[in-house]
C-alpha cells in the first residue's frame, strides 16, 4: 500500500521549514535484506530472541547527524528553555501507538506531525516481509500557536496519540499537544465519481440555468489515496499541559488529563467537557503534587486511574460522584528507609500508568523501576522490576543534567505476561512476569542489522568490565528510549529512539 496524502502535507510544507529538505522528510527506510527467516508469532514468550524487522527513519540523514550533535550540546537546556531554532528537534518522535488490530502504527513527533505506518500485507512468496510496516499516511496534526492572552507560545509537539476502536472502513485517532485534543479520521479512497455535471472542474456549482440535462455520475477507480481529515477539535479546556488522553470503553467518551485536572469529553461535543478531577489548591503556593498520567479501565467505563508525582495511584469511580475528588482506591508503597535520599520523591514520581489488557493489574513506571499492582491490593505492588538500578548512585548528576525528570513510558504485551520499558543509551528492557527473566536490548543504527538477532546488552556494575559489557560511565544519556509500543496480539514491538522508529519481532524457531 502506499502513501499519498500530499494535499495536507504540501500545505504544511510551505509553512514548515523542515519540509523544504530535498526529499521531504518522509523516507521510510525498510530494508528487506538478510536471509528470510521463518517467522511465526507466539504470544507470551516475550523476552526471547528479537530481530529487527525494519527501521523507519523519519527525516533525512543530514538532519539526523546534525541533530545528534545538537542534543549533546543542548542536553542541559532543552527541557526547560523553549527553543525552535533547532529545526531537527521537530523530528524527535514523542509518542508511538498501535491501533487495536495492530495493522496500523501511529507516531507523533515534536513537529506536530502524525505518521501512520501500515503493516505489509502477507503474501506467500514474501514470507520474510511479514511484520514490516510502511508509511500509510502522514499529516500535520498540530501547528505551533500563540496564546495572546498569556503571551505564550503553544508547542505543536504531539504528547499522545490514542486510536479509537474501528467501527467502519475508516480509522479514527485522537492526538493531543499541550492544550488541544483533535479527532482525526483517516480513510482510503480508490474511486472517484466522474461525469457529474452539476459542478464544474473545480468543484463549483454551475448555474442551474445552464444545465439542460442531468447526468448520473459513474464511479471510476483511481490510485488509492489516504486522506486524514480533522473531525473534531477539543480546545480551551486545559490551563496546564495535557499529559494523557484515554478513550473510554463505552467508545463515546474520552478523558484528557493535565498537571492538575482531568476532563471528560463526549466525542460529539467539542464546546463542553466535564471536570472529573481537580487537585489544584486554592493557593498555588501549597502545591506539592501533580497528576502525571491517567487512563480508563479497559472494560469498566466508570473506572479510571491517575498517578501522581508523589508516586501514588488513585482509582476513581465516576458513579460515586460527578467530581471524583475522593478516590475509591489509593495505591501507595511505603518508602524504603534504607534507600531514602533527597531524590526519593523525584525518583518515585510516576511517569506512566497502564492497565493490563485484562483490567486486573496496573503497571506504573517511576524513574528506576516498573511496578505491577493488583487492583485488589493497595498497600504494595505485587511485582517490582529494576530497570536501571545502577543509576541509583548517579542520581545527583542526573538531577543536575535534568535527566531525572525524563518521562519513561511502559507497555504490556498482548497477553499481559511481559512488560517493556525504556532506558538510556538506546537500551530498552523486557521483563517476563512468569519466568522472572529480564533482558536488555538496544535499538541502534550501528548494532542492529535487519533480520539479525538482537544481542542482549549488559551494563557493568562495579568491578571488572567484561568484554561485551558497557560501563555505567559510558552510557549515553542523550539517547533515551521513552516511547515504545507492543502489538496488541503478536510479538511485534515498536521502539522510538529519537527520530528513528525500530520495529522488532520475536524470532521463533
Amino acid at each position: 500500500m502506499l502513501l499519498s496524502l500530499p494535499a495536507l502535507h504540501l500545505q504544511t510544507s510551505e509553512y514548515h521549514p523542515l519540509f523544504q529538505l530535498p526529499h521531504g522528510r518522509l523516507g521510510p527506510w525498510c530494508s528487506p535484506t538478510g536471509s528470510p527467516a521463518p517467522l511465526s508469532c507466539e504470544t507470551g514468550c516475550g523476552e526471547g530472541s528479537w530481530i529487527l524487522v525494519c527501521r523507519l527513519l523519519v527525516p533525512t540523514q543530514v538532519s539526523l547527524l546534525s541533530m545528534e550533535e545538537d542534543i549533546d550540546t543542548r542536553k542541559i537546556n532543552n527541557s526547560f528553555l523553549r527553543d525552535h531554532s533547532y529545526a531537527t528537534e521537530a523530528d524527535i518522535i514523542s509518542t508511538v501507538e498501535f491501533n487495536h488490530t495492530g495493522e496500523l502504527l501511529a507516531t507523533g513527533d515534536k513537529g506536530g506531525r502524525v505518521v501512520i505506518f501500515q503493516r505489509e500485507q502477507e503474501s506467500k512468496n514474501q514470507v520474510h516481509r511479514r511484520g514490516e510496516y510502511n508509511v500509510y499516511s502522514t499529516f500535520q496534526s498540530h501547528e505551533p500557536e500563540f496564546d495572546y492572552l498569556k503571551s505564550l507560545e503553544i508547542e505543536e509537539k504531539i504528547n499522545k496519540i490514542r486510536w479509537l476502536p474501528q467501527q467502519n472502513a475508516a480509522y479514527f485517532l485522537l492526538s493531543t499537544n499541550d492544550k488541544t485534543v483533535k479527532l482525526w479520521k483517516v480513510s482510503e479512497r480508490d474511486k472517484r465519481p466522474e461525469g457529474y455535471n452539476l459542478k464544474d472542474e473545480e468543484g463549483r456549482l454551475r448555474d442551474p440555468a445552464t444545465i439542460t440535462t442531468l447526468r448520473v455520475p459513474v464511479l471510476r477507480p483511481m490510485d488509492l489515496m489516504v486522506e486524514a481529515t480533522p473531525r473534531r477539535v477539543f480546545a480551551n479546556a486545559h490551563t496546564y499541559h495535557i499529559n494523557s488522553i484515554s478513550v473510554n470503553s463505552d467508545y463515546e467518551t474520552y478523558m484528557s488529563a493535565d498537571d492538575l485536572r482531568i476532563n471528560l469529553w463526549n466525542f460529539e461535543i467539542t464546546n463542553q467537557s466535564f471536570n472529573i478531577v481537580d487537585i489544584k489548591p486554592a493557593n498555588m503556593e501549597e502545591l506539592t503534587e501533580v497528576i502525571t498520567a491517567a487512563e480508563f479501565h479497559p472494560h469498566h467505563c466508570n473506572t479510571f486511574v491517575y498517578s501522581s508525582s508523589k508516586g501514588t495511584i488513585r482509582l476513581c469511580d465516576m458513579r460515586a460522584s460527578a467530581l471524583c475528588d475522593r478516590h475509591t482506591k489509593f495505591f501507595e508503597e511505603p518508602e524504603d528507609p534504607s534507600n531514602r535520599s533527597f531524590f526519593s520523591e523525584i525518583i518515585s514520581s510516576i511517569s506512566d500508568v497502564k492497565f493490563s489488557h485484562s483490567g486486573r493489574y496496573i503497571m506504573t513506571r517511576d524513574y528506576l523501576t516498573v511496578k505491577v499492582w493488583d487492583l485488589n491490593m493497595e498497600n504494595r505492588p505485587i511485582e517490582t522490576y529494576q530497570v536501571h538500578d545502577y543509576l541509583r548512585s548517579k542520581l545527583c548528576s542526573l538531577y543536575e543534567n535534568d535527566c531525572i525528570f525524563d518521562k519513561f513510558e511502559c507497555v504490556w504485551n498482548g497477553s499481559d505476561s511481559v512488560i517493556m520499558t525504556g532506558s538510556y543509551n538506546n537500551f530498552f528492557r523486557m521483563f517476563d512476569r512468569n519466568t522472572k527473566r529480564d533482558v536488555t536490548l538496544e535499538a541502534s543504527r550501528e548494532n542492529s542489522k535487519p533480520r539479525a538477532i538482537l544481542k542482549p546488552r549488559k551494563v557493568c556494575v562495579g568491578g571488572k568490565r567484561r568484554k561485551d559489557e558497557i560501563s555505567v560511565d559510558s552510557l549515553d544519556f542523550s539517547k533515551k528510549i521513552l516511547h515504545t509500543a507492543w502489538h496488541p496480539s503478536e510479538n511485534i514491538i515498536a521502539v522510538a529512539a529519537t527520530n528513528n522508529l525500530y520495529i522488532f519481532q520475536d524470532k521463533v524457531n
Partner: protein
Amino acid sequence: MFARGLKRKCSDGEEIAVAEGALATPSYSLQRQSLLDMSLVKLQLCHMLVEPNLCRSVLIANTVRQIQEEMTQDGTWRVPVPQTAGRGPLDRLVSTDILCRAAWEQQGEHPALDSASGPAPDLLSELSMAPCAQAPSGVQSCVWGAHSPRENKGSFQKSLDQIFETLESKAPSSVEGLFADVDSPYYDLDAVLTGMVRGKSVSSDGFEALASAGAPSPSSSCKRDLGELDHVVEILVET
C-alpha cells in the same frame, strides 16, 4: 550481638544518621548546600518561563523544602551568604548567592514595608536575624510567587517602588545605569542565566556586568543592589 545489631539499626533512624553525618562530615553539608544551590538555580529558571514544566518545578520545590527542613533541624539553615562564601567554585557561588538573597529579601521585605522606617538599611539586618522557623514559608513564597497572580502584582509593585526609593535616596545617577542595562531584551538575560548552569565564564561575567552597572556604590550596598536587580529582572520577565 544480634540484639545490639538490631538496636543499632533501630536507632539509626534517618534523622539521626543524617544529623550525625552533617556534623561529622563537612562534605555532606557541602553536598547538601550545593544541591540546594543547584535546586534554587533550577527553580529560578523555571520562573522565567510563563508556563514551566509544572511537574518538574513542583518536584524541585519539594526537594528544596526537604533540604531546608533538614537544615533547619540540624541548625545549619541560615542566610547562605556568609556560609557559602569560602567554598566551592566561585561562579556558582556568585549566582546562587544572588538567588538565595532574593528569596530572603522577599521575605524580609514585607515587615520592612510595614514598619515606617526606610526599607533599605534595615533589610540586611532583618535578613540575617530572620529566625529559622520562618525559613520554609519564606522560600515557599519565593518559589511560588511568580505563579500566583493575585499576590505578585501587588508585591512586585511594592518592591519596584522600594527599589526606586532606595536608588533615588542613595545614588540617583545609578538609576539610568540600572535601567539601561535591564532594558536589554530578556533573551539576553536567558542566555546569562542559562550560562549560569552550563558555562562557567558567562555566568559570573554577566552578573558582574549587571552588578557593576546597577551598583557603583561601595561594597556593602553592592550586594543589596544585586538582590534588587534580581527583583527588577523578575518584574521584567513577568511583564
